């Protein structure tokens, strides 16, 4: 297997893009990643997306986007793994280049959620759960996370306000990210007073949906050299794992086994320990998911992740910065595209291009993309070479 490097990144702002179509949005991200890489051609396109079939009446995104960006005749497929679709596309691109089969791969991802009525989108999100045994009971995706959060608060004796730090950090970082959906800071008061969505999850725990696209260009690492201010960024770890589709079937509903397994695979490949990770783009679709992800990846003991938030250790200057460009909470969560925003942001950090949110001296960054309520989890570790 060859080592793989990232040489280009692209992203669109996350918002309601009324004026742009699905392919215009995806094309913008892919073309900007190609321009960043200085390439006008690629060999394969792996598109992550969750719901374009029902939200936009368009499937077949491999050919659809390859054609749009002027790369017809190239290989192109779409990958779906609910909210972890984008990381699935990235992992596929990494494996394609690592195998020696593909020289230049583009991992792209797009989700256009605001063209359809919100009840269609809510119903579509619920398809990531078990239709027969979860959805038919009248439960939503938010409510599934609320069940997990309430049990977590009960077992580990945390009050609601203990989770405020996750949302406050994300919003503080979103202020400095021009691509973020929300760019206003929030206070602890704002968090505590926020209206409930599904108790104990309030609107400040839940990430906003939106339209967005992101892309990365991957090539064999042997073809890339570090230059001053332009370090070579290698993909040093990639891991993926599944868990039960239904939350109720988990051995331990408060432990993300697939997060642990995917992170351990990535650590082992990279020969790294959690303490060596400089920043972690966690999947904070809900505050509780950020907490469970931090614990399963070895950054906190079970039940202790809220302490990291309370003590400021998740801020850009803390021990394990998360949501450094706003996270899902403030940057936004265009579900099937989110995993590539996380990876684009890791690259920004490792290049030293994260502006006011720069993690000082960041050399090693991890991203973890969670599909469903923990049923498909994909982790990547990227490293900047001197």
């Amino acid at each position, binding site marked *: 297997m060859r080592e793989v490097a990232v040489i280009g990144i692209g992203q669109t702002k996350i918002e309601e893009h009324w004026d742009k179509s699905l392919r215009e949005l995806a094309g913008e991200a892919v073309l900007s990643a190609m321009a960043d890489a200085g390439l006008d051609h690629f060999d394969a396109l792996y598109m992550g997306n969750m719901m374009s079939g029902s939200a936009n009446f368009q499937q077949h995104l491999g050919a659809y986007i390859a054609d749009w960006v002027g790369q017809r005749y190239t290989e192109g497929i779409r990958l779906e793994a609910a909210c972890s679709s984008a990381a699935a596309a990235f992992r596929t691109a990494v494996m394609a280049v690592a195998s020696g089969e593909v020289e230049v791969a583009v991992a792209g991802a797009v989700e256009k959620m605001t063209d359809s009525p919100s009840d269609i989108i*809510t119903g579509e999100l619920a398809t990531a759960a078990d239709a*027969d045994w979860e959805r038919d*009971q009248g439960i939503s995706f938010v*409510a599934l996370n609320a069940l997990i959060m309430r049990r977590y608060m009960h077992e580990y004796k945390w009050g609601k306000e203990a989770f405020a730090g996750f949302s406050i950090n994300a919003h503080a970082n979103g202020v400095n990210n021009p691509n973020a959906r929300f760019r206003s800071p929030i206070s602890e008061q704002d968090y505590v007073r926020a209206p409930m969505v*599904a108790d104990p999850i309030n609107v400040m725990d839940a990430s906003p949906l939106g339209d967005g696209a992101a892309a990365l260009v991957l090539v064999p690492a042997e073809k890339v050299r570090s230059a001053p201010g332009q370090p070579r960024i290698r993909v040093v770890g990639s891991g993926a794992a599944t868990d039960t589709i239904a939350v*109720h*079937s988990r051995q331990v*509903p408060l432990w993300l086994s697939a997060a642990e397994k995917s992170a351990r695979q990535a650590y082992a490949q990279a020969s790294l320990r959690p303490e060596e990770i400089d920043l972690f783009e966690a999947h904070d679709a809900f505050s509780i998911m950020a907490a469970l992800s931090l614990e399963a990846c070895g950054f906190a003991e079970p039940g202790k992740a809220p302490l990291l938030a309370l003590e400021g250790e998740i801020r850009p200057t803390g021990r394990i910065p998360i949501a450094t460009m706003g996270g899902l909470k403030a940057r936004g969560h265009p579900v099937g595209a989110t995993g590539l925003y996380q990876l684009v942001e890791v690259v920004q950090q490792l290049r030293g291009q994260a502006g006011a949110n720069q993690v000082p001296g960041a050399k090693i960054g991890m991203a973890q993309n969670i599909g469903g309520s923990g049923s498909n989890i994909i982790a990547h570790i990227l490293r900047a070479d001197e």
Partner: protein
Amino acid sequence: MEIPRHWRLKKQRYALIGEVCPYCDGKIFPPRDVCPHCGGEARNVYPFSGKGTVYSYTVMQDAPAGYESQAPYTVALVKLEEGPVVTAQLTDLGEQAVEIGMPVEMVTRKLREDGGAKGMLIYGYKFRPVGLGPH
């Protein structure tokens, strides 16, 4: 729509019919083809008692399509006394506050209405606090 899917699930939905694994004696609900405990083939029918406790709960204010007429309602993870956990609504709560650990029992109720007056009605299990008399 989806009539065959709901028809296939009616035994489990109306009477909590699950399985018991012939190899490890693990109780399984909802039914599966492969035992989650030992990996053996799971095919032996096992009726669950319908008794359990609340493992966690939340309230649905904004109900999904087909469930609006019942909102707001409480959904829970219920730990059955035989071991498995199921996702289900709580019903017949009256003024009673829901708590983790609260004992509950299964009843069969209307889950969903599809497509107005002529649409399909879907029935299935819900759980109510124990000790509220016959249903």
